[in-house]
């Protein structure tokens, strides 16, 4: 058993209002530089829709993630040998037009235009070529809130899969928001795709990072990631990606996207997992078993054996404590209401989603009678087709989605009964039985999902550098680089002690 800690996130989609505050703050912190204008480490997509980049879920085109071939796990785009043979050109990589060509406007013209009969206009200028563009044809969230409607929605690979179920009539349309960041997977295919070995997973917290010194710009990570969350900086010619705001999380602060989330949909916590079981879990034959297989790699932070072993392997006490009060552990592993995005990619993603319940249900004629057990059939007739959610979050297994939605519905019914009363107790118990839950669990859930404060939503242990590093050596070594010995360089007389 090789125990590792992972910082993970849950997003409660029911609460996402699609305001893009997360994207904007993330952009302002990380990607407002030349070469990165088109990059959004965090983006919020309206689904159904093509997403960002367009059709990122189309694995036939981008060939991201892993597949099982002859009972073994392989990169879908091809292994190391075929990558080296194709290193002169990456056939599966997205082009800038799949994201969008970033542009600004000629604002100066508004100031400097001579007096004319007509008002001056600010024409769009490409931020790639610096030349005027006649008209931008795609941009960030071009398809926000189903804009483009029946022309754009069919570009969604999930919709194409379920064509017969999805109606485009106005009365039957549905939509939801899907905020996305890097999944910081347990079995990251971007890392395995990198010829230079520049991408790596951090031992301490599982954050996947790109070593800018080692990256040689071969670009296989871009489409190797099935979520398309590694980007090419055309200015530095290197890959960059979401870094889970590690300078913040190391200090015990939530990522900037979580910190600024208006709907407070995001939760961050630590989970412990067995790194030795990751490959096995990613290699189960049936994609529908991947969700359960992924759950099986996580370890119970209350198990004394796990605690003892974790301490032995160098995971310190504050991390184990955080794992015990981790909101992610509760939602994803204990209550099982948070699901991984596209588990069929076999990367074991670590950003989990609570599927949305909100949109009004179809075909409910008598709302008065919809008290408790009425929810059982109603869950099957929700506005967002269960097949669609299953295609996103459960490798097409609608049973998983149904179980979660039922539990969420049961929570609402139970809490309504508790605060305003008036429901038939017997019927509620029937609903609870069907949802396989208890009033205590539902109350815990309601607490975390609805009222939890900052400290409950974000349980992040600090990087605890004082535990692992030779601070005596570091003293006075960092701020004036090039003059003082750089951090980590062993220089006489600052010899590091042996047993670090």
């Amino acid at each position, binding site marked *: 058993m090789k125990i590792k800690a992972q910082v993970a996130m849950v997003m409660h989609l029911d609460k996402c209002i699609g305001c893009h505050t997360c994207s904007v703050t993330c952009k302002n912190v990380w990607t407002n530089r030349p070469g990165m204008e088109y990059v959004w480490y965090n983006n919020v997509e309206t689904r159904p829709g093509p997403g960002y980049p367009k059709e990122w879920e189309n694995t036939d085109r981008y060939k991201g993630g892993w597949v099982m071939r002859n009972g073994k796990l392989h990169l879908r785009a091809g*292994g*190391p*040998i075929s*990558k*080296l043979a194709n*290193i*002169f*050109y*990456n*056939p599966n*990589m*997205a*082009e*800038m037009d799949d994201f969008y*060509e970033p542009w600004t406007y000629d604002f100066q013209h508004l100031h400097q235009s001579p007096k004319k009969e007509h008002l001056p206009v600010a024409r769009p200028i*490409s931020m*790639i*070529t*610096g*030349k005027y563009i006649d008209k931008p044809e795609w941009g960030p969230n071009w398809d926000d809130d189903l804009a483009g409607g029946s022309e754009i929605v069919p570009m969604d690979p999930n919709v194409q899969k379920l064509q017969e179920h999805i109606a485009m009539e106005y009365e039957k349309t549905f939509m939801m928001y899907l905020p996305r960041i890097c999944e910081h997977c347990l*079995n*990251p295919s971007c*890392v*395995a795709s*990198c*010829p*230079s*070995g520049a*991408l*790596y*997973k*951090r*031992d*301490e917290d599982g954050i996947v990072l790109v*070593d*800018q*010194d080692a*990256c*040689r*710009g*071969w*670009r296989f990570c871009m489409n190797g990631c099935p979520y398309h969350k590694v980007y*090419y900086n*055309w200015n*530095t*010619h*290197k890959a960059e990606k979401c870094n889970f705001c590690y300078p913040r999380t190391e200090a015990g602060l939530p990522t900037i996207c979580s910190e600024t989330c208006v709907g407070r949909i995001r939760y961050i916590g630590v989970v412990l997992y067995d790194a030795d079981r990751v490959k096995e879990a990613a290699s189960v034959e049936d994609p529908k078993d991947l969700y359960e297989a992924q759950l099986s790699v996580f370890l119970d932070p209350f198990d004394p054996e796990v605690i003892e072993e974790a301490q032995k392997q*160098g995971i310190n006490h504050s991390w184990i404590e955080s794992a015990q009060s981790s909101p992610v552990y509760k939602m994803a592993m204990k209550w099982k209401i948070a699901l991984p995005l596209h588990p069929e990619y076999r990367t074991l993603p670590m950003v989990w989603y609570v599927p949305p319940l909100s949109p009004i249900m179809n075909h409910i004629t008598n709302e008065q009678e919809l008290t408790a057990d009425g929810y059982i059939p109603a869950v099957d007739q929700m506005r967002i087709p269960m097949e669609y959610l299953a295609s996103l979050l459960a490798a097409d297994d609608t049973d998983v989605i149904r179980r979660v939605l039922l539990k969420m519905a049961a929570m609402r019914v139970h809490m309504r009964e508790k605060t305003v009363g008036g429901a038939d107790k017997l019927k509620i118990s029937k609903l609870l039985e069907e949802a396989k839950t208890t009033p205590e669990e539902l109350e815990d859930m309601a607490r975390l999902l609805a009222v939890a404060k900052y400290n409950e939503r974000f349980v992040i242990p600090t*990087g605890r550098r004082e535990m*692992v*590093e030779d601070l005596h050596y570091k003293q006075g070594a960092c701020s004036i680089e090039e003059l003082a010995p750089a951090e*980590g360089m*062993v220089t006489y007389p600052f010899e590091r002690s042996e047993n*670090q």
Partner: protein
Amino acid sequence: MEQIFWWTIFPYICGAILIVGAFYRFIFRGKSLYAPSTEIFEKKWLRMGSVIFHYGIIFAFIGHVMGVLIPIGVYEALGINEHFYHFGAIAGGGVAGLMVVFGLVVMIARKLSFPKVRVHTTFADYFTIGLLLIIAALGTYMTLIFSTTVVAYEYRLTIGPWFRSIFTFQPLSNLMLGIPPLFKVHVVLSFFFFASIPFTQMIHMFSFPARYPTRAPQQYRSRNGYDKS
């Protein structure tokens, strides 16, 4: 003069620039050991140009190893006669040369004709492609036309021994005096190109990730780069 400068001093100057420059770049400019890719801006023409060029230049490199580095005695010992060797060299080298020239033409045309790519093309890119194009065009001409119409020149008796003698620091520069002028230009420009490698994107040839197939697919690193526990 020609013997002293072009066939004795010049190769060493170029070699020294290549070696010192490459080390300098690896040590002090270690973040730039790549070929700046513009694939994100344009894919279709890159596929045609880049793939054909790179495979062509790999074949051409193997061909030069066979013709220049491997002594003629090896072929004689293996029983490969001159006629047979030249047939192989003209056929194989001709194909490789045409691939290189075609690829380079496509690549430079692509750089000039797509505005997004053109903006991100530097002088070094044009210089490298232009110089390579001249060298490759000369080489292809010598292989396909010169050696079939004028004379099937036996460079394994002159250029080959001279090139190998550079590495033993006993340059047999007198061998180079009588070779056809086209070959002389090809050789001089090639050395000039070698000297330019550390200053252009050509440095990426030393970044080939040969270790990739043997390394573990998943990479873990500790936060402290030096702490390997």
